């Protein structure tokens, strides 16, 4: 039962975050100075999220699996080169498999 409460609360809260500015900015423009920071939302937020997922549950890199770090790095570079996000998996997963085999 409490799992339902948590799931519904997270879903509702997440929607509130999404909808907030759609409500507030209804009839107003953002001031011009916000334009530059807004363009940096994606790179900053996604970088933070990606790196946080690579940290292990004790919040450090100490026990972070090398194969995961390397796979993500290769995936990142492959997408840089090709400009297509599909390549993150096409290049990253094989690296992960090979590394997992090598490290055993």
């Amino acid at each position, binding site marked *: 039962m409490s799992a339902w409460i948590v799931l519904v609360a997270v879903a509702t809260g997440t929607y509130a975050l999404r909808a907030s500015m759609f409500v507030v900015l209804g009839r107003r423009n953002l001031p011009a100075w916000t334009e*530059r920071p807004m363009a940096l*939302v994606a790179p900053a937020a996604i970088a933070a999220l990606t790196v946080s997922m690579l940290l292990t549950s004790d919040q450090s890199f100490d026990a972070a699996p090398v194969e995961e770090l390397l796979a993500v790095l290769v995936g990142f570079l492959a*997408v840089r080169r090709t400009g297509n996000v599909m390549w993150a998996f096409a290049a990253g997963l094989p690296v992960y498999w090979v590394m997992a085999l090598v490290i055993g």
Partner: protein
Amino acid sequence: MTATIDLAGDPRADSIESPTSRDAFLQGVRDIVPMVLGVVPFALAIGAMIGTSSLSSAQGLFSGPGILAGAAQLTTIEMLEAGAAPVIIILSALMINARLLLYSTALAPWFREERLSRRLLLAIPVIDQLHFTCTPRFERGDLDRRARQAYLAGAAAFLVGAWTGTQAVAIVAGARLPDWVGLQVAAPLALAGLLAKSVSARPAVVAALVAAVVVVVGAGLPLHSAVLVAAVAGMCAGTVSTRRTTEGAGR
């Protein structure tokens, strides 16, 4: 039904003829295809994980379309399994999703002429991949109000459909994938792909690097707030570096 569209007061709209709603919808679907292919393994991983968790099928099926944000969904389920206090789980997940506030701020101005009920509807699918697909497209300035809505709807329909459908299949089929498949790396890989797309100019590189460093340094911050703190720090650093490089260029 009038064919004239009120573009007054929208400096971004110009005289270029906008695609029809139908064309814009299909464009949205087409443009988000690479992003969708990028999230399918992530959805598969979450679905497989739900299959082995103590969540009921109904709870698992709800969590995907309900939360509609993979990292927070993953964290919520992991913390539920670990027996964390409900309040802590909710706050942690919302902290991870606080970045959606920023996406909301970026996307909302494109729809400020719509009625509130419509805007509340358009906000439902706001997420990294959607922001990533829609914002650059809107900035080209050739979509009118109606076409922008249709474009977002097309992109969102495909993204949410694929996300929800893949998770549902994985949950119902009770996918038990062997460890070597390495689906735990699917989430960071999906994000790394998005990151590679987003760091095009120098300020973006600065923003990403600073955010990455801050999230490691601040990893011990309570309630997963490091992600939000790092994102804001990255935005600030990137903005400062923009000012530096364009100094003297006015403003």
